[in-house]
């Protein structure tokens, strides 16, 4: 045990130089409770991290094969030598949907549009969702349904009964913005 004799008074002396960043104090005892000096430690955050935008959208196409079906009868009318048209027509589709899934870290808008070729301008097509806003995938699972939209194409109009094989009549465009 050291013999302890304190002579000097405690001097708490702030540094008087050109900056306040430094300070000097004096410890004049080795007695527990009076033999230490403390100083606050300060910290701050300086952010410099970038988060680049990444767009990644899956588009899943249906076959986009449509069949124009004509049924019923054309009945001969002997009295006036003509047919009475008792037929019916309708479109059936094989894969008329387009599914768009947003895997981006930003939200996107998916737009669906059908455009007929000039030779088949009498045919029109409508998507049940012309456009859809898909949220950012950040924080969402791969199977999150909110990231996906499926839009179905419906064709209107007629085609010649000579097109008995699948023939391109137009195109479907999905636009991401």
């Amino acid at each position, binding site marked *: 045990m050291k013999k302890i004799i304190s002579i000097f008074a405690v001097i708490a002396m702030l540094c008087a130089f050109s900056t306040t960043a430094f300070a000097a104090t004096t410890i004049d*005892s080795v007695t527990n409770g009076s033999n*230490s000096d*403390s100083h606050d*430690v300060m910290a*701050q*955050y300086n*952010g410099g991290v*970038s988060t680049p935008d990444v767009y990644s959208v899956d588009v899943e196409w249906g076959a986009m094969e449509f069949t124009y079906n004509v049924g019923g009868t054309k009945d001969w009318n002997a009295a006036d030598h003509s047919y009475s048209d008792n037929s019916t027509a309708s479109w059936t589709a094989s894969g008329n949907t387009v599914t768009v899934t947003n895997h*981006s870290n930003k939200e996107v808008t998916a737009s669906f549009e059908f455009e007929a070729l000039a030779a088949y301008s009498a045919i029109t097509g409508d998507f049940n969702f012309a456009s859809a806003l898909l949220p950012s995938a950040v924080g*969402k699972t791969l199977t999150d349904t909110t990231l996906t939209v499926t839009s179905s194409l419906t064709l209107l109009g007629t085609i010649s009964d000579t097109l008995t094989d699948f023939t391109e009549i137009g195109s479907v465009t999905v636009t991401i913005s």
Partner: protein
Amino acid sequence: MKKLLAFILSLVLLTLLCGVSAFALDENLTLTYGASASGENWSFDGSTLTLSGANIDGSVIFSCGKTGRSISVLTTADSTVSGDMYAAFDNYSYSVNYSFASQSGAVFTLDGALRAGGNNNETLCVNGARVSLGGLNLGASGAAESFLVVKNGGRLTVNDSVTLQSISLSDASELTIDAVGSYGDSALYLNSLFAFSMDDTSSIFLYGNVMALSAENPDYDFADFLPFLPSGVRVATGDENYTTVVDKNGDYIAELVMGAAAATGTAEEHKVFVKAENSMTTPDVYSVEVEWGAMEFTYTKSGSMDWDAVKQSYTDNTTGAWTAAGNEVTVTNHSNKAVTASFSFAKDSTITDNITGWFDVTSEQLDAGVVGEYDSADKATSALTIEGELDSAKTAFAKIGTVTVTIQ
């Protein structure tokens, strides 16, 4: 007429009994112990010789018979004896204890030596008296124990070498032994029984060498006296016969003065040895300067968080780094004792961030300060490193912890 004859006869008888002539002060003065006598400027009551302006041109002899005696000398006015002062015994030598006292600062000067003449324990006590002796010889055989006591402001000067076994100085007393010019310039001969006590109000001036009679007693060792030397004085071993007292710079000390009121003397070219029971203390003083850096740290995060669309998650390509403004603590020891400085960091209890801190120097011993070398005081600098990741919300300086310097 008969009365006159009877008176003259009485004087003659008294003279014969005392062996002195009351008016013959230019001769030896022999005083028979136990018998009173008086003369011009002196008187003797059988045990105490009183001197009041006496000027005795001869020796003073105390006729002590066949037993040891205690002899007192009281000086009431400055007096001198040109010869020696000693005790004379019948057939044998016995011990004598002298005691000198003065009134009103009167000085007793004995040009010759004060001799005890005995062969056993003998003492000279200077009790408040001012006494100057041409020599001092207690313990005639040299092996006998001889004690010197100077007390109550007594001032004793011996102008010759002295052989003693014990010296005691107290109560602002002063002893001067000046052997310069005497054979061998030896001021004080010490023998194996030497003992010395001296309080810090008293002074001793030794002009001359100090001789140790070590050859007579192999147990005698100067090193035994070292703890009693005053602070700042060390003993450097000389040859086999003497030891030199030198100061911290290696210069010899021809005089030693203890006590604030002590006078200073001068002497040169003579080695001196002094032993004292030193009561002077050197209190421990602790004074440690702590110089703090600003202790401001900045956590900078850089790089990029890259989106992995396949995994639909971010890949962290960022790095974080700490920079510091003033992360050092410097501790300088201005104490007269060595200290140990310890450095520690404690995270603030409100901080949940995974932050730690450590000093590169956790503890270091600092040497005691050296006289006259303030600017080169021993110091230690320790740097604080902060690790971990700071909350990005702390965009302004906020307290994250405390650093503590502990001195032990």
